[in-house]
């Protein structure tokens, strides 16, 4: 079937063939006849990573849970199973995912391919660190088991490999035991970048989950005031009487029904929101019990929130820079954003540890994510920011990227040479390609 495809940011858009196999056998049969393709999960990568160069294989119909070992917390699922389904099934039995991104509407295959990270990356690593094994269909039609001990080179290339080593068919994950579905959240409102970084460092030393939100209202001085959030799983004994131990996740109660007019998110509306948000956090301050969905996936409460940015779509610029350069780079980026007068709706800062995959995004250092509406001015600004990131030895998150240059990419991903060599060995070069891999000239 022909379809128009884009990522969550709805920029850029491409048209191509989409096929939806319903079993591993059907996948193997159909991929043999496809032009350069890539597997796609829930389409939650922001840019063009989940859009095939010629064809796209939707993995959504491979959505069976295969087995759960309730002694060791080992869960085996097909790649199209979503994080939401996993949480709905296993949280009531006392298990949670070891690392979660900002939305639960993602597939397991997508989480492995992007080696997604959560607010606990500095402690326990990204999603890939908790994958025990994978079943991978190589472009030559072999279904291989990959783990740290079996086909380990392919295993490490596939985690964070953006689907460019084959189609992930199944994954076995180590879940973590939890006593409740609640998180104890603490918030600290900060006045400037230094106090934000200090509060974040303290939070990371003390808490399981930590992240900072930064107010990037244009014209606000000093830059970098924000709110630092920490979170801990609440123990059963700590839960007040009358609370449901494992609250059910709530689906979005409101959604954005149509594309909002471009410019609804402007410096004034975003500035007003930011003042409210910062003010509320400054008032709250203390600990707060929050259900898991509100804590980890606040934006899931608003259906189709990507439509807020209007028809033209939006970009997320997420970089990571080595710890030593962290403060300087973040300060410079915030300054440049403020000077450009664009209003990012969201700016999020946190520390990352090392990634496990050859192409994993995380490295020990600071990561900063900015959401911006697509305009010519935004694109120019992001090119400037890329130069700052590259000079500091940093890189951009491929799951978010829609526009970086091949040079920026090559400068940041040092595992690329090994990755490309492996792609040639398994016959992936020329057979497995996304719009992203083509844009970034990945061989």
């Amino acid at each position: 079937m022909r379809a128009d495809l884009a990522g969550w940011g709805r920029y850029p858009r491409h048209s191509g063939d989409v096929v939806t196999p319903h079993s591993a056998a059907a996948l193997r049969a159909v991929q043999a006849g496809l032009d350069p393709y890539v597997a796609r999960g829930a389409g939650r990568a922001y840019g063009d990573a989940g859009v095939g160069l010629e064809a796209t294989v939707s993995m959504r119909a491979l959505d069976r849970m295969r087995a759960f070992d309730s002694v060791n917390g080992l869960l085996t699922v097909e790649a199209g199973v979503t994080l939401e389904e996993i949480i709905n099934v296993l949280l009531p039995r006392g298990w949670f995912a070891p690392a979660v991104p900002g939305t639960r509407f993602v597939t397991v295959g997508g989480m492995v391919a992007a080696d997604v990270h959560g607010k606990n990356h500095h402690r326990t690593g990204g999603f890939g660190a908790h994958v025990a094994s994978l079943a991978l269909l190589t472009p030559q039609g072999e279904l291989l088991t990959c783990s740290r001990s079996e086909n380990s080179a392919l295993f490490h290339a596939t985690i964070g490999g953006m689907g460019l080593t084959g189609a992930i068919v199944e994954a076995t994950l180590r879940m973590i035991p939890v006593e409740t579905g609640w998180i104890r959240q603490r918030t600290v409102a900060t006045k400037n970048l230094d106090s934000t970084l200090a509060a974040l460092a303290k939070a990371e030393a003390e808490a399981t989950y930590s992240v900072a939100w930064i107010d990037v209202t244009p014209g606000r001085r000093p830059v970098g005031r924000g709110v630092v959030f920490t979170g801990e799983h609440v123990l059963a004994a700590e839960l007040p009487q009358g609370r449901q131990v494992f609250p059910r996740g709530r689906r979005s109660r409101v959604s954005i029904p149509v594309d909002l007019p471009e410019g609804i998110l402007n410096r004034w509306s975003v500035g007003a929101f930011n003042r409210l948000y910062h003010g509320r956090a400054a008032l709250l301050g203390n600990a707060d019990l929050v259900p898991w969905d509100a804590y980890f996936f606040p934006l899931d409460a608003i259906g189709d929130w990507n439509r807020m940015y209007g028809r033209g779509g939006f970009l997320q610029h997420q970089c990571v820079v080595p710890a030593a350069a962290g403060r300087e780079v973040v300060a410079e980026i915030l300054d440049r954003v403020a000077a450009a007068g664009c209003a990012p709706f969201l700016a999020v800062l946190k520390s990352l540890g090392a990634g496990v995959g050859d192409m994993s995004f995380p490295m020990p250092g600071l990561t900063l994510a900015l959401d911006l509406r697509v305009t010519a001015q935004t694109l120019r600004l992001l090119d400037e920011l890329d130069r700052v990131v590259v000079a500091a030895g940093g890189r951009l998150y491929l799951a978010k990227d829609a526009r970086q240059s091949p040079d920026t990419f090559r400068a940041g991903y040092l595992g690329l040479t090994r990755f490309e060599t492996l792609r040639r060995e398994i016959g992936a070069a020329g057979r497995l390609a996304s719009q992203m891999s083509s844009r970034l000239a990945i061989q």
Partner: protein
Amino acid sequence: MTTASSVLIIGGASDIGRATALIYAGHGWKVTLAGRNLAECGRIADDIAVRSGQRPDVVELDVLRTDRFTAFVEAFPEAPDTIVCAAGLLGDQARDQCDPNRAAVTLRSNFEGPALLLGAFASAMAARGHGVIVGISSVAGERGRASNYVYGAAKAGFSAFLSGLRHSLVRQGVCVITVKPGFVRTKMTAQMTLPRGLTAEPAEVARAIFKADQAKRPGSLYVRPVWRPIMTIIRMLPEPVFLRMRL
């Protein structure tokens, strides 16, 4: 519930069959999946085992092999409390209308096989004095249309069979329910462009089935209420008007 009720799902590897099995298993029912493709039914049984904590039984059944139905029914020590028939085949109208053998497969998969099989279980249920039979028919059976009248004719036959079965068993404690889902997003319709408001998810159909089973109200239902006025109009259109339409 004192002892677990049992449900047999025919067409267990279909998307509606799978979703239905999951709902029943989630409510603690003992589920048996019957289908032609044992491997596929096993894959679904594993999935349901993880999600619900109970693994359904899997049995082989080809609705075209009517000669094996008696043995199939006799293999059950007791008739299940509920039988849901989700087996079916959309067929390909263009090919079916010029190839009698293909048309026969469409007719037999949607009508002959399901009807005879449910009929075979019905007598056991009637003898016992209780049971629920859910047949998944189709809005396509309400009026033959150029675009899918082979499939539609089979579903019309199946609906008539279910209606008669309902009539015949109503005083013997057996409840027969006809479900007409309208469009459903499944493997069967993957190649079609479906109108959003009229298209149900398999889980929605499954919920409607389970709810109807719990209510034990013999009759026929649409999954989405919007289909009632639509199908009333399509049925009432005078033939000269209908013949001029492209449907």
